[in-house]
C-alpha cells in the first residue's frame, strides 16, 4: 500500500508525485518508490505534471530511486517537468544525467 500515485504502462513504472518532493515527504517517497521498484517494472518514469517543486532532499531520493532501478537492470527518466521543476533539474544537472521528456510516451520510448 503506498501513498504515491503510480501506474504501470508500456512496461514502465510511472510515478506521479504531487505538489512537492521536499524534506517533509522525501523519505515517504523513497520508501514507496523502493517498494514499487521491488515489485517491478524497474524502468521508472517520474511524471512531474503535478509537481511544483523539488528540493535538494527531493533530488536525493530521485537519485537513490534511479540507482535502485539501475541496479535491478532498469533505469529512470523524467517527464513533463513544469518550469520550476525544469530549473531545479537543470541546476542540479539531473536533466543531462536522466533526461527530461515532454511526454510520458517519449519517456517510455527512451528507456
Amino acid at each position, binding site marked *: 500500500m503506498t501513498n504515491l500515485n503510480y501506474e504501470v504502462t508500456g512496461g514502465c513504472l510511472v510515478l506521479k508525485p504531487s*505538489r*512537492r518532493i521536499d524534506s517533509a515527504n522525501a523519505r515517504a517517497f523513497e520508501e514507496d518508490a523502493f517498494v514499487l521498484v521491488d515489485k517491478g517494472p524497474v524502468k521508472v518514469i517520474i511524471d512531474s505534471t503535478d509537481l*511544483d*517543486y523539488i*528540493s*535538494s*532532499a527531493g*533530488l*536525493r531520493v530521485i*537519485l537513490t530511486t534511479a540507482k535502485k532501478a539501475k541496479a535491478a537492470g532498469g533505469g529512470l527518466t523524467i517527464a513533463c517537468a513544469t518550469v*520550476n521543476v525544469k*530549473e531545479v533539474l*537543470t*541546476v*542540479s*544537472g*539531473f*536533466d*543531462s*544525467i536522466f533526461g527530461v521528456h515532454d511526454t510520458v510516451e517519449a519517456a517510455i520510448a527512451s528507456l
Partner: protein
Amino acid sequence: MTTSNTPLAATGAKPSDESAAHIAALEAEVSNLRAELDDLSLLYEVTTEHGEAVENQLADANLALQLTQTRLSEELTEATNYIFSILPAPRKSDPRTRWLLVPSTELGGDSFGYHEIDSDHIAFYLLDVCGHGVGAALLSVTAINVLRSAALPMTDFRDPGAVLSALNEAFPMEKQNNMYFTIWYGVHKRSTGELRYASAGHPPSVLCKTGGEVLTLSTPGIAIGMMPDVVYRAKLGEIAPGDRLHIVSDGTFEVEIAPGEMLAFADFVKQLSANEEPELLLDWVRGINGPGPLPDDFSLLTIDF
C-alpha cells in the same frame, strides 16, 4: 484507626459459650488487623525509603545528563569554531572579498575558500554538502581542506573541469556515508582577465559587470559523488576591473515567498546585483522567510575585481 489493648473478656459479665466464641473471633480479627497494620506500616517505611532512593537516582541521572549536554554543546561549539577558523579572512588587496556564512543549525554543510595557486592564478570555490549537522560539516571541511592544500593527485588546479572530475573520483557517495556535495569552482587569471569556472549541481554564480550587465555563470554537471566517471568541463568568461562576482549556495535563496511558492532565482539575482553588502541581502532573505532560522545554510562570497 484506633485500637484498644483492653482484653474484651475483662468486662465483668460472665460470658456464655456463644459470646466467648464471638469474643474469640473478634480478638482474632483484631489481631489480624494489627498484623495488617504492622505490614502496612512496614510497607510504608520501605516505600518511603525506596522513593528517596529513586529520587536520589533521578538527581544523579539528571546531573549526568546535564554534564553530557554541556560537554556535547562545548564540543559542538569547538567544531563550529574549527569550521570558521579554516574560512579565509576577507582579502584586503585586489581582488577584495567579503563573505557571510550563517548555518541554519549549529553546524552546516556549506564552506568556501580562495587561495592563490601561483602569482597569476587565484581560485575561488564554495561547496554545499547535502544535509546539515556534524556529518555534513565533516565532509565539508574535508573537501575544502583538499582544495586548499591542492591534495588531488595529478590535477591541474588551474583547470576547474579537472578539479571537479578529480573530486568526483575522490568522494563517491557510497564511501562518504551516502553524502555528496555541490560546488562552484572558478580560477581568475590576472594577466589576461580570464575566468575559468565549472559547477557541479550548484546554483550559478552571479557576475555583475561594471557596465550594469548581469551574467549567471554555471556549467552542466551533477553534484560531486553522485555518479562515477562524470567528466566536468570548464567554461571561459572574462573579468574586467570593477566587476563583482557573487558565489552563493542554494540556501541563500531557497525560501518561500508564499506557502508552497519559492522565491524565483531571477528575483534573487535582481536583489543580489542591487546590494552592496552581504548583510543587507541576508536581511532581505530573512524578511521573506519570516521569523525563525532559515531552512538551509546561507552562504555568500562576494569578490570585487
